[in-house]
């Protein structure tokens, strides 16, 4: 599972969709793996406008990846080879093999095993309004 995936994910619990804190999900105990691929600056140039920069920055900081610019690179910054190589490493080469993805709203944790994240919800986190109320109560007492 490439790290960039998290830029497109949110909590699967219906009641969390409207909550700002359900994105980005937070990696916990992430075991990272590097799989080298050829440096493709053109690909990075095309990916940058597709991603949510704030979400990427939060994720990179939480994983201790220090070299992410504070704002989305534009213009001349796109020609800075070191920045592009750092982004290449983060976006295309870094995988999460084991760990968890956690929702900042309800506290639910999605397990990642062998690079496959499990977003299936246990039956008590179902879809009806009643069960969403239950989740919120549960989340209030959850040390986030």
């Amino acid at each position: 599972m490439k790290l960039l995936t998290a830029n497109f994910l949110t909590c699967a619990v219906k009641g969390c969709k409207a909550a700002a804190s359900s994105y980005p999900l937070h990696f916990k105990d992430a075991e990272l793996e590097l799989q080298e691929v050829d440096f493709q600056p053109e690909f990075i140039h095309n990916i940058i406008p597709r991603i949510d920069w704030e979400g990427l920055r939060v994720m990179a900081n939480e994983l201790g990846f220090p070299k992410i610019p504070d704002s989305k690179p534009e213009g001349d910054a796109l020609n800075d080879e070191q920045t592009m190589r750092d982004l290449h490493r983060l976006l295309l080469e870094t995988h999460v093999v084991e760990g968890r993805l956690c929702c900042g709203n309800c506290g639910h944790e999605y397990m990642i095993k062998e690079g496959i994240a499990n977003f299936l919800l246990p039956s008590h986190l179902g879809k009806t309004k009643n069960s969403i109320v239950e989740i919120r109560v549960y989340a209030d007492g959850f040390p986030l």
Partner: protein
Amino acid sequence: MLPTPCTAHVPFDTIYEPAEDSYLFLDTLSSASETAWLTQHFPATTPSPTILEVGSGSGVVLAFLAANSPTILGRADVLSLATDLNRTACLATRETVVKAIAAQQNTDPTTSPSTTDTNRAAAAAAAQENPSAVKSTHLSTLQSNLASSFKAGSIDILLFNPPYVPTDAVPRAPTATDFVPAGSRSEQFERESYLLSLTYAGGKDGMEITERLLADLPRVLSPRGVGYVLLCAQNRPREVAERIRGWREGVDGATGWCAEIAGFSGVKAGWEKLVILRVWRECIREE
């Protein structure tokens, strides 16, 4: 004809084996009309498209589109994603997609896992033409219910070959215990039958799962997003298309939706047996 991704590694005891409907998907996406539409809809100067296959099974459809994206989309810089309820299918999909991209886009033919000389020759030719070519990338396969784990506006191309067979009811969603090895032979058989039922059982009119996905499309698709959904004759595809054309969103319902038949097979007495609908937002009207 573009090469079909290899699925020799896929255990078909709990995963849907590529069949007529899967191949209709491949033929539709690679048809001249669809390739032209997609290339025009996602010009190479626009941001890299995300491609999600929902309920990917063997992963053959997603692998086909990702590996052949230079031909079908006119660009290789695509990010592929997949979901399936069955963990075994998630592992299979990942392998199918990664292998297909390597087989068709690998610029080093000596390490390419291509199984045919034709693929190897094509890879070698591509390598000579452009040694630092962009290669499509598979981001991840998630064990997830439809597109529910994706955030709003995150998907540019969504593919769905749903469980469309009319059945009395739709099966329950699987839990972790459905994937631990079963004890007896009969338990194992029951387990496999259950997981396979997820691949075809569509409930009332075969539409219950498809309806859930359609209801989520306006949320998960980006403004430029397009969905491809396969339907069978009993799903009444023309009525479904008509209904989608009635969707409205935005201030005063300014944005409408389009639905067109992008591909079909098996015409009998004027009715298609299988249909693939292309669903997308019409251009946002200028003031």
